[in-house]
């Protein structure tokens, strides 16, 4: 099976004046197509940094990162946004929806950015919301939705352009047990039915039960 993500000896150092924080200390990692990978670790272990680098939101200090067969460390910053748009779906820790948009338009947004008309984007978004059982919420704005609903809408938004890779940062972080299960069931379904590679970083052990492989990240190193 081919690899969708490859990390070669990746380091990330944050410099804040005289203070240097080494968030990642030579991480090498390979994720196969269609995998459901769970990266676990305590707070401050570098999970979010690793996920930001995989999702091209951040660049490593050293090392090389390949996503979907492309060396993303060599892509200029200006081109990375469109690369993400075409290849990667991202679900953030705090279900980051845009408060000015309805649930439907939040989901449709990546499709509109990628060139679909507003009507076409909404049509595709409606289909996804229907699949997730959230049709009745399409006109609601984020503050009117529950935490679980917001996270599922964020997942729908990440899926609308049919990405090969879905990366999730603590997707169950603030949810009650019922909502956690609903979100994890959804991720598992997407992975199984659509073959989408899912990478989740979390400190929630429940996620590991849904994944096909688990890794532990401790103090910037994969154990």
């Amino acid at each position, binding site marked *: 099976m081919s690899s969708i993500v490859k990390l070669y000896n990746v380091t990330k150092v944050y410099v804040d004046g005289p203070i240097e924080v080494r968030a990642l200390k030579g991480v090498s990692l390979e994720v196969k197509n269609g995998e459901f990978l769970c990266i676990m670790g305590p707070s401050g272990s570098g999970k979010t940094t690793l996920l930001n680098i995989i999702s091209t939101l951040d660049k490593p200090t050293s090392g090389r990162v390949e996503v979907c067969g492309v060396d993303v460390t060599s892509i200029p910053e200006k081109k990375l946004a469109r690369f993400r748009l075409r290849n990667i779906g991202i679900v953030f*820790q*705090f279900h*980051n929806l845009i408060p000015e948009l309805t649930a439907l338009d939040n989901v449709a947004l990546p499709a509109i*950015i*990628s060139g679909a008309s*507003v009507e076409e984007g909404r049509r595709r978004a409606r289909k996804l919301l229907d699949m997730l059982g959230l049709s009745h919420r399409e006109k609601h704005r984020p503050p009117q939705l529950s935490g679980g609903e917001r996270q599922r809408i964020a997942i729908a938004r990440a899926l609308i352009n049919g990405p090969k890779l879905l990366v999730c940062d603590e997707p169950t972080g603030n949810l009650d047990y019922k909502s956690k299960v609903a979100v994890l069931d959804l991720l598992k379904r997407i992975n199984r039915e659509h073959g989408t590679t899912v990478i989740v970083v979390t400190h929630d052990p429940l996620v590991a039960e849904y994944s096909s492989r688990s890794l532990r990240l401790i103090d910037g190193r994969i154990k």
Partner: protein
Amino acid sequence: MEDVNFRFIAFMASRYFLSWRKQTVVIIAAVTGATFLYLLSYSMLNGLTEVTLSRSLGLAVPHVEVRINESRLEGLTDVLEGYSVVEAYSPRILCEALAVHEEYSHGVRLIGVYDLMEHNTSGIDEYIVEGDWLIENYTCILGVKLAEELRVDVGENVTVILPSGRPWMLRVSGIFDTGVAELDSYIVYVSLPKLRDLTGLKSLVVAVRLRDPFKSDSLAEDLRSMGYDAKPWSELAENILQLLEVESFYSNALIGSILVITGLGIVNVMIMLTESRKRSIGILKAIGASSMEVFLIYLLVSVLWGILGYLAGTALALATASYLREATVEYFSLKVPFRFSSGIFFSALLFSLTISSISCSYSAYRASRIRPAEVMRFE
């Protein structure tokens, strides 16, 4: 060059525009106020310029003035008749005097004229508000303010004391009201031949009216080359033009201040808005929007604010001008109308868009520089 999807930019800008209600109201109100003041200031300045020049040129100030001895008048009239641009001319004798009526007196300038020639040249007779334009040896026409000072009315007599001390009794046949204080409170029109007889003055001032007042410089230049002491209105009305320049300077300073103050207010609102929307901007960029698109979204919202502020400010200015035009505005005893032109409306549009877009550009730039990884780690 970054990818730019204008459909997405328009979509997001419209959503932001509809959602940021408080900011939209505040910024549109600021642009409306600034546009309103801009249009009103410049339309008043236009009106003031128009009124000042129209009232002064030809009336208080001739288009061209030629100072000449009576002996050369015939030669000059021959010359003037040869210019098609010359509409009319009127010889005048000027003389300072004291006007007395009962126990009231006032310093005046007597202007000796031939009534028909003066009618064709200055058109002063159009401003007669009482009596008639009738100048004979023992009649005079004077301004409304002077008539008030002397407590004299049409049909009553005033006595003019000439520089020689000789009195000259004149019946007031008409009173004019030009709105130009200098004329209304100081000038008395009398018969030229009689004034010449009484004073022995031989020097004349010939006022020339042109079909196109803006050809006064070239005519004056021609007359000078022929040896005449000629001056165009731009030299004669130097103080009026300077006054208008000063007025224009203060208007520009006022508009500049409005621009800066309004702009700083908008910058402040936009910086607060951008700071509070960092996460939202981070999401946009994380899901695929380019920095240029984020910049253009913010800029488009600011342009929409500018256009709406312009329309509202223009409507308000037109409504105010329409209301005040009926009531008229008194300014140095001139009634100053509001004079709008397409140029003013166009420059006001540029003004509104400049305020809103330049003020928002900095925030738009800051928004476009936001790095999603930095703003989305924490709740």
